[in-house]
């Protein structure tokens, strides 16, 4: 009976997730253009990919995304939760709705919304023009130095609300007496946060970190639609590089090697988070 129940789900999972992963590893050892016969080339693709400076650029881009779409949103959400966990808030469900809204929107849509916000004539530059003057106006996404942090802020916007809602739902399990006890001990807001709130939401914190870290390392939609990875390679992520290699340039082997390396990086990152933030 249990095997029968698992069977349909497992068949789909095996056919469309497990087998393809193994196949990606296999492809990463081949030279193949999608048409001619496959040639085994050992580690050549990995050597090629790892000696290509663009790979390291894309890894750096990824790490900046980790900062903006994982670490910063989690830090900001912790601050927010720390401030409001101690007080009774009216209309909290309204705020939760608003915060979570960006996460429900496709990143493709998010990219379009922010392209306009960042445009030369867009509203951000209008504010800058009014406050600092014309010489500070920038075409954010077209500027080699600013494009990456600008896109990172979009990532921050897209993931922040998700982390807040996660952490807030964690605070609801914290017993209110713990706060009272801490206050009896004369704990200030900061100590209260570290002794009551933070330990209480450890599980939610870990899940938020894992989810946003995975999202940040593999981000594809945002650079593809907002900047096409440019200017130059300034916002090209490993996912975008892999997509170009395989589906635009027919370089299946190197593209697969990038996919394998990216997956390994994600696994290592998740393992690190799990080590650093233990649930129980």
């Amino acid at each position: 009976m249990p095997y029968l129940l698992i069977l349909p789900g497992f068949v789909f999972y095996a056919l469309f997730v497990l087998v393809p992963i193994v196949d990606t590893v296999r492809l990463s050892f081949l030279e193949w253009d999608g048409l001619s016969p496959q040639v085994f080339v050992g580690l050549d693709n990995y050597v090629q990919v790892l000696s290509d400076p663009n790979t390291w650029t894309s890894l750096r881009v990824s790490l900046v995304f980790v900062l903006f779409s994982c670490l910063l949103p989690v830090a900001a959400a912790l601050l927010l939760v720390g401030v409001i966990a101690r007080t009774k808030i009216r209309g909290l469900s309204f705020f939760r709705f608003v915060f979570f809204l960006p996460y429900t929107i496709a990143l493709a849509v998010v990219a379009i919304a922010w392209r306009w916000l960042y445009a030369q004539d867009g509203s951000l530059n209008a504010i800058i023009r009014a406050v600092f003057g014309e010489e500070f106006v920038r075409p954010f996404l077209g500027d080699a130095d600013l494009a990456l942090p600008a896109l990172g802020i979009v990532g921050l916007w897209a993931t922040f609300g998700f982390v807040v809602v996660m952490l807030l739902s964690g605070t609801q399990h914290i017993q209110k007496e713990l706060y009272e006890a801490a206050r009896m001990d004369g704990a200030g807001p900061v100590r209260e946060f570290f002794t009551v709130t933070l330990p209480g939401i450890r599980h939610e914190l870990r899940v938020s970190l894992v989810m946003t870290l995975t999202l940040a390392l593999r981000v594809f939609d945002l650079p593809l639609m907002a900047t096409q990875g440019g200017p130059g390679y300034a916002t090209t992520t490993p996912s975008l590089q892999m997509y170009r290699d395989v589906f635009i340039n027919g370089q299946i082997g190197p593209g697969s090697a990038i996919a394998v390396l990216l997956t390994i990086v994600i696994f290592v990152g998740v393992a690190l988070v799990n080590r650093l933030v233990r649930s129980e």
Partner: protein
Amino acid sequence: MVSRRSQTMSYVVLLLFAAFAIYPFISTTLVAFNAPDVAVSGLAIPREWSLDSFISAWNNPDAGIGRSLLNSILLSVSVVVVSVFFSILTGYAFGTMRFFGSKLLFPLFILGLIVPYEATVIPLYYQFRTLNLTDTYWSMILPCIGGSMAFGTFWMTSFFKSFPKELLEAARTDGSNRWHTLWRVIVPTAASPIFALATILFIWTWNNLLLAVVMITQPELRMVPAALNYFVGLQYGSNYQITCAAAIMVALPVMIIYYVLQRRYGADVLAGSLKG
């Protein structure tokens, strides 16, 4: 007692973050209500409110927004229905039964939670191409069901684990077999977690761009995010009125679904469903 000052502080912080979250929605909406041929700048509050940008985005024959909405609805609904059904079955097995191999199979499913589509999309594309299935709905539906199983299994298993054991026992002594127990006793009480799962899988499937640009090249079969991507690449990709109007039409269905479901089940359930 918490002082009045820290209460005010909380609201100030909340409002600041809310403004940050809502601002891009406002600026996108405002610019989209300008006619396509009007020069826009700054906040772009329309001098004359016009639906022309929506109309030209909708009517553009190359982008096919209307058609892509239909495609995406078909994709997302079928993926959600099948994945939720399969997830109830796998969750029931892992959550309520002990059997040989479960200690190995369950972690195998959980592994899928962090496997990115990037790790599977290349062989998937070439397999489907060999089977002549690229440029069909199947090339999207089947991988998306497979990709939903890890999360679905994880989510339904934790629900079944928390289901009171006594009720299961009671149903068994009543002589109802396991299949009937599942559908007559358990599932009717599980509307909330099941709907939460459905919502989140819907959002993920609807928003999947990588698979959509790889598997589908025919304009009539394009999914919504791919249609938007195509739209941005067109000659008027820099016409912000039209691209923003298109983006709004595409985002609206998901926002409505999210609004309705969170009214019913609370944003919390949705967030809870994301505990990956």
